[in-house]
């Protein structure tokens, strides 16, 4: 079993890739995969636009002033948030499908580090989230109903997009927690409930008092309040920030906990 010098391999040129293997080609292919899933695209991009066209164009909404803009702008922001959180949750939950198909295991035979993989998933989710926000805002522009200063279009759109990061963590958590077969259907249902509770469809002031108290603890409530702040100009309530941070810790912590278990078992 002696090694002949002629076949002694040269290991000196063997390098570890930078950034733990993260690269834009992989990101491009991840985004392509996500957009190839027709159901994901319809639910997270088409459905919020349709909801906006159905519920945001009420005649009274564009004439009624609200904060620095009008009610139509308020509804548009809510529905952009709805679409963005659907998109980022779907993006994160794709890990479930990858685990089921053994792709996560295959990736462990490459230099890709677990951190780079998660960053890849989160950025993919954010790209779809951006498409979703853009689609609703473009619908807003084309219908001429929402009205607010240009700076607020940008500020609210950006807040919605960055805020949807919270749900990329939620998606990752679900993706590591649930089996692939039913994770997508479940997400649609869970997010519809959370959107109601968070006041994205109807202001929670219209709920009974007891229900309102519960609704304020749900994960979309704080985020929904925060993304409307630039429009309403009513200042930030610290409880909203606590709500978002607390849920971020729960979702990210849960995702890390499940991910550790997952990679330990394989």
């Amino acid at each position, binding site marked *: 079993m002696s090694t002949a010098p002629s076949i002694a391999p040269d290991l000196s040129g063997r390098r570890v890739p930078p950034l733990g293997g993260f690269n834009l*080609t992989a990101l491009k292919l991840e985004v392509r995969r996500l957009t190839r899933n027709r159901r994901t695209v319809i639910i997270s991009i088409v459905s919020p636009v349709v909801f906006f066209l159905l519920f945001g164009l009420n005649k009274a909404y564009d004439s009624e002033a609200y904060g620095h803009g009008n009610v139509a702008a308020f509804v548009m922001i809510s529905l952009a948030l709805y679409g963005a959180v659907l998109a980022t949750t779907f993006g994160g939950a794709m890990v479930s499908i990858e685990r089921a*198909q053994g792709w996560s295991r295959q990736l462990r035979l490459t230099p890709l580090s677990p951190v780079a993989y998660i960053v890849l998933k989160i950025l993919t989710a954010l790209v779809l989230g951006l498409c979703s926000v853009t689609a609703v805002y473009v619908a807003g522009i084309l219908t001429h109903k929402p009205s607010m200063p240009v700076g607020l279009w940008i500020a609210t759109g950006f807040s919605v997009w960055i805020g949807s990061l919270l749900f990329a963590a939620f998606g990752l958590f679900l993706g590591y927690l649930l089996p692939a077969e039913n994770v997508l259907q479940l997400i649609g249902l869970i997010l519809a409930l959370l959107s109601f509770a968070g006041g994205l469809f109807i202001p929670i002031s219209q709920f009974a008092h007891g229900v309102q108290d519960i609704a304020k603890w749900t994960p979309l409530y704080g985020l929904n309040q925060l993304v409307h702040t630039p429009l309403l100009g009513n200042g930030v309530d610290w409880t909203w920030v606590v709500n978002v941070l607390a849920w971020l810790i729960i979702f990210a912590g849960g995702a890390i906990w499940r991910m550790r278990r997952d990679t330990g078992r394989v």
Partner: protein
Amino acid sequence: MPLAVKLTGVHKNFGHVHAVNGVDLQIASGEIVAILGPNGAGKTSTIDIMLGLSRPNSGTVSVYGMQPRQAIARGLVSAVMQTGGLLKDLTVSETVEYMGSLFAHSQPVREVLSRAGITEIADRKVAKCSGGEQQRLRFALALLCDPELLVLDEPTSGMDVEGRRSFWSAIRTDAEKGRTVLFATHYLEEADAYADRIVLLRHGTVVADGTAAEIKSKAAGRTVRATLAGASEAMLQAIPGADSVEVRGETVLVHSNDSDAVARYLLTQTAAKDLEVTARGIEEAFLALTGDDPAPGAATTGAI
């Protein structure tokens, strides 16, 4: 130069099941080694440990002198796994492009596709590929980083004879350039035809380790069985021509390529009686070495 693979006293338990039970294995650069054993012998568990996919309960693993994970990050090792590992919603070439993007250096997509013989299905979705085509795609992925060590876990399971032959000819061509290849199989013919060295695994332990020719010559020999009181293994081992021996109470078993010499010796130099000589085919030898018989066959002592 560090060894391609070095396993020392590796144990892996799943609950009460000892999948790997003290494996020592050293593989030098340029070797083509088959890990041969029946299902459940611990082949996949051993390979998983070698690739850093699972951690041994005890023992040490090194690949080119490093942790498996470090060797993988440098593209020194790649593997073709049995099943799974492919995304159904990507095309064949997208899958190769994706995987290739993760390495510091990787072979061009087109070249890898052509070496694996899947150029003509490059634009096909993975979900629409046959089992054999998917296996070739896994092979293509394993070639991307131009690894020093290629590990194949039962690479041809589920392939027809023709698919198997062309798959192995691709591997063989590839190995001629000096690549170290390690593959697991439960087909004796496959190990015999493609490996320079065969490691026989049974119940998570190495029961034999030698060249294919050595394994075959061992299998081609005969076993002499006799009744002999007070025999010791050391004494039997000293018989000219004996290559492995066993003592079971008053019964002694001596395996040899020259069974006549052993029989003559036992009858003339010892008090042995009830002498019996049995031949064993390759398959029987394999079964005797790896089978579930609680008292292993005559050939478990002594190196081959």
